[in-house]
Structure formats: C-alpha cells, structure tokens
C-alpha cells in the first residue's frame, strides 16, 4: 500500500492537524512503513471469527438516570483558554 501526497493531506485534514505542504511527504513515508507492517493482517483467514471489542465481552452497565455529579461549573470554566459569562468562546462560526 502507498498513500499519496493527496491521501496524507486528506488524513491530516480529517484529523484536524495542520501539516504543512513540505512536511507531507516525510509524514507519508513513515505512515506507509507502518501500513506495510499492518498489511500482514490481510493474509490471515478470519472468516467466521467474532470481532473482539473488549476484553471482558460484557454488556455495558446501565444506571438510574439521576444527577450524581455536583455542580463544579466555575472550576471547569476557570481552566478554559477563553470563557465569558459561563460560555466557552471560539472564533465566530456564523456570519
């Protein structure tokens, strides 16, 4: 398998990581080495094998739909990069 320049740019975009145009080929070369190793899986016959998502294969627990957490809004807002009046501030999205 070989990821192209465009593939790597697309993956970076999906991952929301800025990769400059002159870094893309170096990053792509390392990703290709990793995917060549991963490709070994494809030769293995896994027909009929149940995928394993979790070591204990158990169903997730349900709990009563009641409030269990205390209100710590101020403590959590205090560490935000930009907050005002109980809101997280981000660059304008809607013109």
């Amino acid at each position, binding site marked *: 398998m070989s990821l192209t320049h465009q593939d790597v740019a697309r993956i970076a975009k999906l991952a929301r*990581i800025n990769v400059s145009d002159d870094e893309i080929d170096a990053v792509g070369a390392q990703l290709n080495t990793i995917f060549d190793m991963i*490709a070994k899986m494809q030769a293995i016959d*896994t027909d009929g094998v149940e*995928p394993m998502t979790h*070591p*204990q294969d158990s169903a997730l*627990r349900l709990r009563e739909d009641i409030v269990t957490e205390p209100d710590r809004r101020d403590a959590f807002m205090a560490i935000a990069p930009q907050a005002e009046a109980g809101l997280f501030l981000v*660059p304008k999205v809607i013109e």
Partner: protein
Amino acid sequence: MINSTLKALSQQLAAKAISSEELAGLYLDRIEAANPLLNAFITVDRERSLQLARAADAVRARGEAGLLTGVPVAHKDIFCQQGWKTSCGSRMLDNFISPYDAHVIERCAQAGLVTLGRTNMDEFAMGSSTENSWYGPARNPWDRNAIPGGSSGGSAVAVAARLAPAATATDTGGSIRQPASHCGITGLKPTYGVVSRYGMVAFASSLDQGGVMAQTAEDCALMLNTIAGFDERDSTSVERTGEDYTRKLGDSLAGLRVGLPREYFADGLSADVARVVEAAVAELKKLGAEVVDISLPNTELSIPAYYVIAPAEASTNLSRYDGVRYGHRAAEYRDLVDMYERTRAEGFGREVKRRIMVGTYVLSHGYYDAYYLKAQKIRRLVSDDFKAAFESCDVILGPVAPTAAFDLGANADDPLQMYLSDIYTLSVNLAGLPGMSVPAGFAANGRPIGLQIIGNYFDEARMLNVAHRFQQATDWHRRVPAL
C-alpha cells in the same frame, strides 16, 4: 532507609522511628539532587508534599493511621490530581491544572499515601522509551545513555533510583512491564477492569489499565490492594468483591505449571535476555514448578492488530483536545477550523500525530472493515491462544522485551523498529490479561533484564505468589544503581 521497601517504611512509621514529614523530606532531597540527571519527574512541589506528610502525621497522632498512612509515592503524570499539573507528557496539557482527582489518586489519598511528585512519560503514553515526552527523555539510572523504557519511564526511574519507594503507572501495550524490566524493578499490570480508569487520561480505552511499580512483589500487592476495586464512574470497571492480593504470597510453588510459549523464545530474542529468562525458569523449577511447553501461534499478529486498534481508539479519544475547554490553544488563527488545526499541530508531538493519523485513516469511510474490524478479529485469535494455553498451565513465563534497554536516540527516527520491540507485551493487553515484570538479571553491558509473568484473568494473587517466591530465592530486586 532509602533502600527500604514500602512495607518496611510503613513499619518504621508505625514504630515512630521516623515521621512522614521527615521521610518525605528525605525523598524530596534525593529528587532535588538526582532529577537534573534523570528527568524522572515533570512536577515536584516540595511544600505541597510536606503538607500532605504533616497531615498524615496528624492522622497517625490521632491513632487513625492505616497500613500505608504517611508512606510517600510518585504518580505517573497521566492520573488527574486536583491542584497539580497533569500534563500527560504533552505540550497540549502543559497548562492543565486538574480540577479533580482520578479514582486511583482518591484511593491513594484515602490510604494516606503522600504524593512526592508527578513522573515523566511518553506523551499520552505513546512510546516505549520516554523519549516522546514534551519535557525531554527520562534517563536510565543504570546507564544514563540508555532509555528507561516507556511509557511509564519516569515512574520506573523513580523507583529504581530510590527517589520513591513505589509509583503508579499505566500499561496499554507494555508501558508498566517494559520500563520495569529495563530499570530493574517490579511492575504489575492488572487484569483489564480491575483498576478504574476514571481520571486517567485516555489513550486506547479497551487496552488502558492502571497499575503499580515498586521494589518487590509484596509492595506491588500492597499498592494493588490500595488502588483496585469497583468504580461506578468507569463503565468497564469490573464488579467483583474485593480481595487481598497479599494472601497467596507465601504459598508453595510445588506443582505449579509454568507455560513457556515457543514463540517467545524464537528468532529476535537476544542472547542476553534468553540467558536471563532461562536462568529464572531454572530457579522456579528448583522451587517446585513444572515446565509446560505451550504455543501462542498468533503472537506476531499482535503487532499489526495492536497498531490498528490502539491508534484508532487514540484518534477518537484525542479528538477532545480542540483548544476550546482546556489545554493549549494556538495564539493565532483565521477561523474555528484553523484554530483546531493549529492548536493540534502545536500541542501534539510527532509520535502522537502519527498515531492519530493512522487511527483517523483506519476509521475513515470505506476502510473500517479492512482495518479496524480485521484487527478486532485478530484480537480474538490472540486472546483465544491464551485461553487454550491456560488449559495446560497456571502462569506463563517469558521475556518482557527482545533486548535490554537500547541507547537513547537509537530508534528515534524509526517508529516501526520501536513498535516491533513490543512483541512480548502487546498480546497481554489485547487479551486483557494481568502481567508482571520481575528483576531477573543483567545483560553483558550491565543493563537490567526482567522476567515476564502472565497470569490468567483475575489471577493477580497467584502471579504475585510466583514473583514473591522468586524474590525470596534471588536478590536481583535488591540491586541498586550507583548514582
């Protein structure tokens, strides 16, 4: 005093031979002197630690002390601890002062343990050398040109260099066992679900498990008693009645069936490690163990399966770092998407970005079945290998890593080489089994080598029994690096 085990320190405190404040001061002095050389700690806060120690002394004065009240420990910088910087080795969280405590931290505080500081690690626990830390690599106290292993390298160095008697750590693909092996200390990764992941910064949620490092198996058992147990706040925490992990320590090993997986002693294992592991097996035979030849045929496939599953889960977990609610935010940006992209480009290091991109790709439209689903099927095959093997043995023994610690920088530009060195540890995480590393000897160049003990599900007490009896018969765990 400084070479004392956790257990011995607790006895000294109980006998009032030393106060918790004096003991913490002793370790803090050592940290201050050694940390510039070893870089084991990211954060040390002397006054805060001494305050905790004084509080522990007050608890003891009131006659309310428990077994570990006032004993100092170090915490891996992955466990959120209120009021302490919790960086996870990343620039992304360099400004993150945690507003809450992880379950593991809560449990340690309830037991009266005193925090000595926060230990260095590979960024977001991704790595096997601690070279991926934003704060620079930690160094192996046995040879400062060698890596200490990773990702819990700082915790391993702290225990090995006697900067702390014990430390918390985490293991997603070997991050407790491999640094424990490389630093000549004892490390334990419990069965998946035994220790709550609440407040433990997430890397790969179906693999991550908190655990402990100390000088001895007995100390690991005491620490595990402290941090194990059901927690409602972790959806994968296992509901089991509590157990005393020290209860089997002294049991005889007569008739114990130890499985040696053929695949662990094949090509790729260095002569040094083979010699040390074989000698350790011989020692256990003297103690009454019977050796059983077993096979784990899908061992090699654990590498590609792991390096699909772990990055996939990481790419999902790390999407939370967007510069909005906490952590780093880029200083300049054009719009919202540009802010995300620059924040993440600046905040993450190279290895973390690489894994996020691998994970993003394997989960992207049209590739899910070929990669993620395929890897989960292989995960089942790897796990079934262990099930079959445990039909004929009680514990599995083998190497932790193919070689002793390699030189700093040796694999820095070769991520794949680093991944391949995880061959003996990854499958245990894929299966969710408990595993340990116990000091068992040294390479010709003087770097430590550990013996891996793999137990069946929830069989930590037996694993600790094997480790403890081995340590009663050997003195590898008492060797201390000259600083």
